[in-house]
Structure formats: structure tokens, C-alpha cells
């Protein structure tokens, strides 16, 4: 890599393409985690959920030969993992960080175990066919941005689409309003007659599902195989992205792109050679995460009730009894 090459478009276009590819799983995981955190749940287990999504998605895609079934299974497995995490933290009131950290050990162990048991011992190399790139008509022919943005695999377009969807979910839908309120003042939500636990469980399920999708993106769409340790801290980087993106879907997407760009640049520099030794460049995204988390911390915008279990005595039968007693004038559903 020479400095002169920085001026050439042939340097920037592949770099931008790579940035977007790298950012895609971060966008998925970050969107899901931002929903969790807005609802008051800090899910440190994203890393593990991504690993589960990666292995489950890979297995399903490998056995069925259909990558899309793989993504679906990964989403389902992620959602289940999210529900388990939610059960422990929301219903049982377990410490969210303890649970997340231990969940990672569990999930990374399980993913590695399943893969090793099924493939390594069988001495077979399991590689998925790569997903073909779909060029969006006309858009992909735009100058400069066309190729990086619109000549990608469909899963990348999924990420584009999900950003506004999550924006709508969080900022415009009634559910998002309740979720945001549950993350700021769960007592107020409870006293407004909403079910805090239910909202938070839904949030952890969404967070898990998105982490699963993110993991499957790594294994199915990017590597075409499952490799132990392939998540490589991306789940934790997603946590940082959420903070840096100020818990807003568009911010999360931009932060993910920034990380994607740094990672892509790092890879390029390794190939091209630079003043910093290649092996050290690998650490660049991690270093960036630390910087970003520190900068964002000064801004202090965490949802107020994050990492605090909400614990009014739960009355599971309330809804049934309530309907039995509903007043004639009751307009509530």
C-alpha cells in the first residue's frame, strides 16, 4: 500500500464494500442489543448468542443445503437463547452481567462442542457454497457508491432494511414506547398497567434473535463454515456500538459502519504492509472499542433502569381475573 494509492478510487471502492460486509453482523447484533438495553436489559451474552446462531445456522444450512433455512434456524435459536437469558434476568432477577458472562461460557462451549462432535471427529471438511451477490438493478451502477452498497449478498440488504424497521419499532410503535419506558422507569410502566416482565422478555427474545442472525451471517454468508472462536469479540463490540450509537438504530448502524471500515482498513494494511506490524493491526478494532466506550461514557445516556431487575411481586393470574371483572364501560383490550 502506498500513500498515492489512497487517492485512487480503486482503493476506496473495495474498502467500502468490505466495510459494509464486516459491518453487517454488527448491525444485526447492535440493533437487537439496542432494543434490549432500551428496555432495561444489558445483554452481555450477545457474544455467546452469536456463536449459537453461527453454529445452528451453519448446521441447518449444511444439512438442508439452503442458506435461508439456516438463517431462520439461527434466528429461532437466538430467540430461544434470548428467552433463557430473559428468564434468568427478568423473571428470576439474576444479575445481568453475571448471567451474560456465564451465558457466554455456556454458549461458546456448546457451539464448540457440537461442532467438534459432529465434524472434527468425522474428519470431514464442511464448507457451504457461497451466497451469490445480487446486484440491485440501476442502483448498483451508480458511480462510487453503487458497487459497495448495492452489489452485495441479500443478507446485507436485510441489514439495510432492518435499520428503519427497528427505528420504527423503537421510536414510533406503541411497543417501543412501552419498552423505552420500561428501561427508564419500570415502576411507572407497571403502575400504568403494563406488564414490565413481558415487555422485557420480548426485548431479550428480539435481542437474541438478532444476535443469532448476526452469528449466522458470519458462518453462512461470510466464512461459509463454522470455526471455533469465529465471533471473536464481535458480540462485545456490538455492545460498544450500541453505546456509541446512543441506543438509536441509525446511530448503531453508523457506528457499525465505522467499525467495519476500521476492520477492513486493518486487513488492507496487513496485506499492503505498513509502519505498524501486521499482527498488531489485528488489535485495531478492539482498541477502537475501548476508545469509543470511553468517549461515549462521558455522554452518559444509559437507560436509567438498565441492569436493574424489576421485582414487584409477580401476579401471573392477574390478567385472567381482570377480564372476568371487566366493567361494562371498559374499552381496554
Amino acid at each position, binding site marked *: 500500500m502506498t500513500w498515492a494509492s489512497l487517492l485512487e478510487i480503486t482503493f476506496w471502492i473495495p474498502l467500502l464494500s468490505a466495510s459494509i460486509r464486516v459491518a453487517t453482523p454488527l448491525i444485526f447484533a447492535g440493533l437487537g442489543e439496542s432494543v434490549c438495553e432500551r428496555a432495561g436489559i444489558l445483554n452481555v451474552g450477545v457474544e455467546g448468542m452469536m456463536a449459537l446462531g453461527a453454529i445452528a445456522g451453519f448446521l441447518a444450512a449444511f444439512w438442508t443445503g439452503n442458506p435461508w433455512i439456516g438463517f431462520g434456524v439461527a434466528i429461532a435459536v437466538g430467540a430461544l437463547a434470548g428467552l433463557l437469558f430473559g428468564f434468568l434476568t427478568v423473571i428470576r*432477577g439474576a444479575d445481568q452481567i453475571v448471567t451474560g458472562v456465564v451465558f457466554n461460557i455456556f454458549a461458546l462451549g456448546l457451539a464448540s462442542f457440537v461442532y467438534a462432535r459432529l465434524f472434527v471427529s468425522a474428519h470431514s471438511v464442511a464448507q457451504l457454497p457461497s451466497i451469490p451477490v445480487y446486484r440491485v438493478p440501476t442502483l448498483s451502477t451508480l458511480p462510487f457508491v453503487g458497487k459497495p452498497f448495492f452489489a452485495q449478498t441479500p443478507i446485507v440488504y436485510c441489514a439495510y432494511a432492518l435499520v428503519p424497521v427497528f427505528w420504527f419499532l423503537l421510536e414510533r410503535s406503541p411497543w417501543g414506547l412501552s419498552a423505552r419506558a420500561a428501561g427508564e422507569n419500570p415502576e411507572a410502566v407497571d403502575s400504568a398497567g403494563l406488564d414490565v416482565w413481558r415487555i422485557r422478555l420480548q426485548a431479550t427474545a428480539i435481542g437474541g434473535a438478532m444476535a443469532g442472525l448476526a452469528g449466522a451471517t458470519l458462518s453462512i454468508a461470510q466464512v461459509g463454515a463454522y470455526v471455533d472462536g469465529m465471533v471473536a469479540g464481535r458480540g462485545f463490540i456490538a455492545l460498544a456500538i450500541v453505546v456509541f450509537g446512543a441506543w438509536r438504530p441509525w446511530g448503531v448502524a453508523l457506528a457499525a459502519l465505522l467499525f467495519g471500515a476500521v476492520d477492513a482498513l486493518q486487513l488492507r494494511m496487513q496485506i499492503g504492509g505498513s509502519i505498524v506490524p501486521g*499482527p498488531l493491526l489485528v488489535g485495531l478494532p478492539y482498541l477502537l472499542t475501548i476508545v469509543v466506550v470511553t468517549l461515549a461514557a462521558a455522554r452518559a445516556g444509559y437507560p436509567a433502569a438498565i441492569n436493574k431487575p424489576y421485582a414487584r411481586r409477580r401476579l401471573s393470574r392477574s390478567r385472567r381475573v381482570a377480564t372476568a371483572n371487566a366493567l361494562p364501560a371498559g374499552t381496554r383490550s
Partner: protein
Amino acid sequence: MTAVAAPKLAAAMRSQAVLGLGLVVISLTAAGLVLLATGVNPLRAYVEILRSAFGSVDALSEDLVYATPVILTALSVILAFRCGLWNIGADGQLYLGAIAAVGLGFNHVDLPGPLLLPAMIVGAFVAGAAWAAIPALLRLRFGASEVIVTLMMNFLAVTLATYLIGGPWASGITPATGPIAPAGFLPSLVPGTRVNANLLVALAAAAGLAFVMKRTVFGYRVRTIGANIHAARFAGMNVDRVRFLSFAGAGGLAGLAGFGEVAGIYHDLPNGLSPGYGYTGIVVALLARLDPLWAVVVAFALGALNVGSGGMQRALGVPVSLVSIIEALLILLILGTRLMERRT
């Protein structure tokens, strides 16, 4: 605010020990189901684990070899946790300790023989402490989440080690750095095994930490801050200072683990020095309910589990990662049943 069924549950299982044992059985059963699903007889697997873990002097010694760094990383997690901070970074601090020990022992510093080992110990402690001081500062000064920062610093530590191994300190032969001077070798405790003197360091550290926590003014401050940081502040304690010192001390303890691996086992810095000792330390700390002395016991138990499952892998082809599943499952169950209520 116990859950609805809690009183009944508590009555049925008055003794926590019974419940704890029950959970161990449940997690073994659950892991057994995983084994069955992948076509292995779980009983055979477990027998194999027991045999490989306890069946010979060699096996027992390997349990201790595994337990040694884990005791230290567990103590590291405990010390930080006791003042309300998360040290997920013991793994990275261990690497820094190892790097410092190798750096001193790899003929980079001209030290007379008898001074080399003490220098390596101090160097490893200081390096681990300095590595931990970064997330501590970022947390206490700027409020940056120490969970995320310590995790990232683990990756950075591995990156640094990989760079040293492949570059400046490369041996040129093995995927490791060149060897340290023999004066930097820790003596073996049991001839013919890999059990080395760092076990004594770990045991002393456990006893020392238990003493500090229970008997000293510093330990009292740490406990108070962990139990109620507001009251500590109102009582005039310099909360940030105590937390910083604890966290740095935690890093130092993990650094000692790295020293032991270098001086007692490998005599160089190999690729993949730590198979996640820092994370196992978290498991041990939680299972030991943040008690330094119990951490020794739990570390040995998990050492046996790991060594045993290594044997199981060789005999039955069952991957070692089964152990992580069992350990983590056990803690998740404990969290779910609220057996481990907050105790600080």
C-alpha cells in the same frame, strides 16, 4: 422480593448444600443428555473423567497444574468483585504477566541468577497490575464500562503476545518465543510432574487475600464499598482510590498466574498460553461465592474436571468443551434458583 414459589422451595430444600448438590446432578444430567444426543454413553464419559482426573499420581498432579493459574485468576476476579467491579480481563492480565516474565527471562535483561526469579515475579505482578490499571482508570475517571474494556484488553493482550511470538521474540523453531534462562525456572514440587512452586504462591495469595479481606482496614473498605458504595462515600472513604488499588491488585494476581505458566511450565511464551484461565477464574469465583479459600477448593475441582475431560476426549473423542457447558450450566442453574444470593 422472592418469587412466588420461593417459600415452598426453601422449605423443601432447607439446606443449601442439598440444593447445591442437586444442581450439580442436574447439570451433569443435562450435559449427559447432550452427550446422548451426540451418541456417547454419558456414564462411560463420566467414569472416564473420574479415572483420568484421579486415577494416578500423574493425573492428580495435572489437576494441581491446572488449578494453579485458576486459583490466581479466581482471586483476581474476587478482589475486583468485592469492591463492586467486574474483572473479565484476568486472561489478558495473565498474558501480560507472562510477557513480562518472558521479557525478563529471555536474556533481555542481564540479571544475576538468584535475582532473576524475584524480578520475574515482581515484573509479572506489575505488568498485570498496569494492564488492569487502564480499565480501572477509564472506569473510575470516565465511567467506561469495565466489562467491555477488560474484555477488549484480553483480545489486545493476545494480539500483543502473538506479535511478540511471531516477531521480536520469535524462537524461529516452535510457535513460541525463545526460552528463558534456566535461572528463571521454578522448581518442581513433586519430581517428575509439572506441579511447580507457583502452586505455593497461589495458596499463599489465597490465604493472604482471605486475611486482607477479613482482618485489615483495606479489606474492610473494599467490603464496604462492594456492599454499599453510598455508605462508604458518606463515611468518608476514598472510594475511587480503594477501587483503583483493588483492581490493579486484581490484575497483579492474574499476572502472577502468567508468571507461573512461564517459569513453572513452559519456560517460554507459547501461542495459546491460556486456554481461558481468566474465564474459568470467573466461574471459580462465582462458585466459591467470592470466598478466597473456597476458591482454592473449587479451582482444584474444576482442574480435575478439565484434566478428566481431557482423558475423556482421548478415550472417547468427546470434545473438552463439554466442561464449559457443565460449569456454566451449573452457575446458570444456581442463578435461576437464586441459591447464590448476593453476598458481598
